[in-house]
Structure formats: structure tokens, C-alpha cells
């Protein structure tokens, strides 16, 4: 491989991984922006999205996955779309329920109390994922191996789009990530800018009391935020599963940590910030793996983070100062 080819390849991987991180980061940043809660459980909601996805794929069975064109030419894309919607709705609903049951009663409690409750929820969800991994289905392996990582079947054809002779590998899944995440991000941006509820979200995030004084039902806005953040996490979990071909009950840990870092790097509370932060972290990881050493990648990622924050204390796209509420 020539150096250019290597760089191109790392660029592809960095962007693909980064886009997934960005999707998860949006869920963090939206919830943080509105209730100032670092929602520790978000990564684990994402994990359960992966398990739901694998369950659906398992129920549909080989016909939908392996036989090309079982539902016509674009069957794989339809399946992917279906999975995104299913996992999105599931994770959105789950996030909504968690907000209703756990966070809402604690809304006037100290922020750190909510944080610890979120940590507790995270542990509960991890355990649910562990149990789910023992589901008596062929795709899960069943029984004792519940804790093991699960192979996620390839639902998109795995061959190299640039041809077998090419050193650079570009697969359908790389394209799929962009095909799914970019419309979602555009959709979210439009939603937040153009719809009434979206404007309510922005207003609540920027000044909850003023938002109430404008006649905004902030409880409803908060619920909607959890719903949408969860939906994006669910979509991310589908892309993660399709891209890595693996799910495991602890997959939300790193995904969550990366996403949280991305959200802060971009400026927490800022939607474009989360997207930029996510992509940036994906790229830094890829480049560090290649040009430094994998063993130092985490150090590089967090080192860059600290440096950036020293010089831009509110993140890349964050506002210099937030109004004190």
C-alpha cells in the first residue's frame, strides 16, 4: 500500500467510526443541553438497541439477510431502514421511560444526585443486556455464553466497492453510515430550527425559565428531547452493529465515553458541535492507530481533548459564555 492509499483508507475509517460516535453524541448533548444531566445511561440504551437489532435480524432469519433481493432489488436497504426505525423507536421509548421513572422525580434534586441515578440506570441496563444475550435464539448462541460478544450477520454485501484488486477498501457499510447519519443529522437540524417543538427545545436549553414564560411546556420538551436523543442512539446502534458486525453487553461503555467526549469537545449543548466532535474523535483515533501506535491512541485522544479545552474552554463550537440560570 502506498502512503496515499493508507491515508485515504484511514480517512474512510476515521469518518465512518466518527459518524457513529457523532450520532451517539447527539443524544448526550441534547439531554445535557436541556437538563444539564450527563446521561450516563445513554450508552447502555444504545447497547440495548443493538440487542433489539440482532433479535429482529434473528427472527427474520436467513432469508432476509443472506438471499439477495428477497424483497426485491433494494431489500437490504429496506431492511436497514426498518432496523433503524425499529431500534430508534425502541431506544427513544426506553429513554423516555427512564426519564419519566427515574430522572423526572429527581428534577429538583441536586445535579449530582441525578448523575448517580443515571449511573445506577446504566448498571441496570447492562444487566438487562447480559440477560438478553442469553436469549434462546441461534443468533445469540444461547445459554451460558450470554456474556460473550455476539456475531452480527452481514446484512450489506461485504465486497470491496473499489474492486478486489484495490488496496483501499470501501465497503457498502461505509457508504451506509453516511447514507443513514447524514439525513438524520439534517433532519434533526431542520426539526430543531423549523418546528415548534424544536424551537421549544432550543429555548428551554438556552433559558428554561424564559422558555416557561414564553408559554413552553418544558416537561413535554424535556420528554421529547429524551425521545429524540434515544432515537438517534438507536439508529447509531444499528449502524454500529452493521459496521462492526459484533454486539456485546458492554459495547455501550466505550461508545458512551467516546460520544460524551465528542459532545464536550464540540461544545456541550451544541448540535453541530457534537457532530464535529464525533467525526474529529473518529479521525484522531484512526490517525493515531496508523501514525503513532494503537497503544497510545487513548492518550492521544484525551491529550488532544485537554489541549483543545485549554485553548477553547467551551469546546470547538460552544458559546464563549453560557447564561447563568
Amino acid at each position, binding site marked *: 500500500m502506498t502512503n496515499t492509499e493508507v491515508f485515504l483508507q484511514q480517512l474512510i475509517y476515521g469518518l465512518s467510526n466518527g459518524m457513529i460516535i457523532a450520532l451517539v453524541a447527539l443524544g448526550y448533548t441534547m439531554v445535557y443541553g436541556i437538563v444539564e444531566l450527563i446521561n450516563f445511561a445513554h450508552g447502555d440504551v444504545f447497547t440495548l438497541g443493538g440487542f433489539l437489532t440482532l433479535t429482529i435480524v434473528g427472527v427474520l432469519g436467513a432469508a432476509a439477510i443472506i438471499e439477495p433481493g428477497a424483497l426485491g432489488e433494494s431489500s437490504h436497504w429496506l431492511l436497514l431502514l426498518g432496523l433503524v426505525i425499529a431500534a430508534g423507536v425502541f431506544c427513544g421509548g426506553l429513554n423516555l421511560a427512564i426519564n419519566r421513572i427515574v430522572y423526572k422525580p429527581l428534577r429538583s434534586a441536586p445535579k449530582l444526585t441525578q448523575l448517580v441515578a443515571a449511573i445506577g440506570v446504566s448498571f441496570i441496563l447492562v444487566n438487562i443486556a447480559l440477560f438478553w444475550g442469553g436469549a434462546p435464539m441461534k443468533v445469540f448462541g444461547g445459554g451460558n455464553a450470554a456474556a460473550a460478544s455476539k456475531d452480527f450477520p452481514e446484512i450489506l454485501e461485504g465486497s470491496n466497492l473499489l474492486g478486489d484488486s484495490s488496496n483501499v477498501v470501501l465497503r457498502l457499510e461505509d457508504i451506509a453510515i453516511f447514507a443513514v447519519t447524514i439525513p438524520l443529522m439534517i433532519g434533526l437540524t431542520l426539526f430543531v430550527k423549523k418546528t415548534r417543538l424544536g424551537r421549544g427545545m432550543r429555548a428551554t436549553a438556552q433559558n428554561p425559565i424564559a422558555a416557561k414564560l414564553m408559554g*413552553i411546556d418544558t416537561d413535554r420538551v424535556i420528554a421529547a428531547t429524551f425521545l429524540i436523543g434515544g432515537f438517534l442512539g438507536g439508529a447509531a446502534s444499528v449502524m454500529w452493529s452493521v459496521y462492526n458486525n459484533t454486539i456485546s453487553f458492554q459495547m455501550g461503555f466505550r461508545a458512551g465515553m467516546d460520544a460524551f467526549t465528542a459532545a464536550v469537545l464540540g461544545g456541550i449543548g451544541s448540535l453541530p458541535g457534537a457532530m464535529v466532535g464525533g467525526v474529529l474523535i473518529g479521525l484522531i483515533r484512526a490517525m493515531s492507530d496508523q501514525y503513532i501506535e494503537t497503544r497510545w491512541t487513548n492518550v492521544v485522544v484525551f491529550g488532544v481533548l485537554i489541549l483543545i479545552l485549554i485553548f477553547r474552554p467551551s469546546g470547538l463550537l460552544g458559546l464563549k459564555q453560557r*447564561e447563568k440560570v
Partner: protein
Amino acid sequence: MSALLEVQNIVAGYGSIEVLHQVSLEVHEGEIVTLIGGNGAGKSTSLMCISGIVPLRGGEIRFAGERISGVGEGIRADKLVGRGLVQVPEGRRIFPRMTVLENLMMGAYGRDDKAGIAADLEKVYALFDILKARSSQLGGTLSGGEQQMLAIGRAILSKPRLLMMDEPSMGIAPILVSKIFAAVRELNRGGLTILLVEQNARAALKLARRGYVLETGRVTLTDDASKLLVDPRVREAYLGDG
């Protein structure tokens, strides 16, 4: 004619501290009433109670003849806006990461009458032409006085029956203060009822028809504004004529 707003013996506070002890006041249709008092007298808390943000511990509040809040109950803050009870909060509280136009449109959050909104927007622009010039600028980049105008404009778009303003002159260049007060007078001439909370008692009393003096959570004095302006107690404590 009964009052548009009746506040009867309300008690409120934060945590273990009681801020308001049995405050009562009324505002009639079409008048400007001002609430003056020193720092920490409970002026802002009174407005927050009326807006439904701070819960009551005693007393009740009626608006347009209807009971809107009492102890442990009341209509939620966001619903009150729809009934025309609108506040311009202290410190403006504009949305810094929205454009001026978006900020204004947040005022119309609960409204669906497009034509009415457009007309109100024109009204705001006529009142404060600077807002039109800055309509695509981010709210956070405006000066303090401009932000105050924005906050008032935003409130107008909520189609208020009663407009409550909390310290509109605070931290603003004097030249803009007179501009804002002129706008308040104009709004009132157009038929809008206004409850004005101010530290700048002289300006407020000149503008208002009636006034209330609030001291450490109690109404200590109430009268026509013109009489309060000459009342020695008021002159000494709030007009700097001691």
C-alpha cells in the same frame, strides 16, 4: 369593574426562607401600576408567583376573574401565557443562541394566527426599529439595551392582556432607558395593561397611575403614583431626596 389581576395575601419563598409575607395588590384594565422597593424586597418573586414559576405557600391569585393559583395548585406557567399573562423577566433572559427574529418568534410559541403574528411583529418593529435592522443577528450579540427591547418585543408577540416587566431599566444606558419607557407608555396608550417593577422609582412613578411600595416582603404603602411621588417617606427612601 373588577380588577384584571388580583393578588391576595400571597406568601412565598425559597427553601427555608420566606420572601413574601401576605402581599396583596391589584391591577385594573388599562392602567400602568408600578411596584417599587429596594433590593431583596420581593418584587421579582412577586412576579414569579404571578407567572406561576414560584409556588404559593399562602393566599391566591386571580386573573380576569378566574383563580389561577393558590396553595399547592394552580395553572402551569406555560398555560398562563396563553391567557395573556406575560412577563418580561429581570435580566432579559433572551435566548442567546437564537437570532433576533427567532427570539421574537419564541414569543409567539403558542399562537397559530399567522396574520396576527405578522401584524404584531410589525408593531414591534415599529416600536423598536433597531430590532428589524438586527433581525438575523444572534440574540447574545446585542447590547443590554437592545436585549431589553428584544425581550419586550418578544413579550408583545405573546399577545399579552397584562404585561409584567421586571426592572427594564437595569444595567442599561440612560438614553436607552428613556426610549424603553417611552415605548412602555406607547404600549399602554394602545390599551395594554402593565405591571412595572422598578428600582428607578422616580421614572416608574412618573409613568404609572398607581404604585405599591414593597419592603422586606410586605406592601407598606399604596396610592396614586402622583401622590407617592410627593410622599416624604417615598422621597426619602426611594427618590434620593432625603
